[in-house]
């Protein structure tokens, strides 16, 4: 099983804890972001012609640059036709932008009380919708 699938399983496991705490909910959201982050890296590197280069290539991905790239794609394909490749790209970019900021709140912002529903939405809406079909 690919690493990003394992991460998603961890996120779901944390959500299913009987008495969720801020620690488990925040870890779930953060882990969900990393599931998406690694899914994109996996998809980008998987077809690289020389397999021995894939790990080094994967290490070159940067959160901020991926945000900037997602921002551009999101703006470009926001109004693309339903079921088109453009719309699919929009969904990936949009969900990445959203989840990256949610991870930031989950990891560092003491000012918010993360709810179980918010954590569920982060995982079920923002991650599952970009899985390759």
């Amino acid at each position: 099983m690919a690493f990003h699938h394992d991460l998603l399983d961890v996120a779901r496991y944390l959500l299913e804890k009987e008495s969720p705490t801020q620690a488990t909910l925040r870890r779930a959201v953060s882990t969900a972001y990393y599931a998406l982050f690694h899914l994109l890296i996996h998809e980008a590197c998987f077809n690289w012609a020389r397999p021995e280069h894939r790990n080094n290539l994967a290490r070159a991905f940067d959160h901020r640059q991926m945000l900037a790239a997602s921002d551009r794609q999101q703006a470009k394909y926001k109004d693309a036709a339903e079921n088109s490749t453009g719309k699919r790209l929009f969904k990936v970019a949009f969900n990445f932008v959203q989840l990256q900021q949610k991870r930031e709140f989950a990891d560092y912002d003491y000012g918010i009380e993360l709810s179980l529903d918010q954590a569920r939405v982060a995982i079920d809406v923002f991650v599952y919708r970009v899985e390759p079909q």
Partner: protein
Amino acid sequence: MPLTPTGFVHPQEIKSAVQRVETRFAQQVDHINFSFGEDWTGAPSIFFRVVVHDEASQIDRLGELAEQVSISLMNEAKTDENGLRAYFDFRSVAEQAKLQEPAWA
């Protein structure tokens, strides 16, 4: 009045845009709040908080709705043109009733 890379953003214009989206999605959306701030990169951002009716908050329905409402808000509020990065959070009426957070009221 927040200052963004493209100039000043008028909260009243955003408010009107939000009202148009609330009307368009009245069957699913109870109300929408927003605030200005910066995201983790320091970019000027707008944070929308969307409270949806309980029936619309089921996970299998929320995905599509979240996308449609988000795109409508980005288009109506012209977030790209205003130099704002838009972020969206969703919760149900029932959850807000339980949590009673003023920012979502």
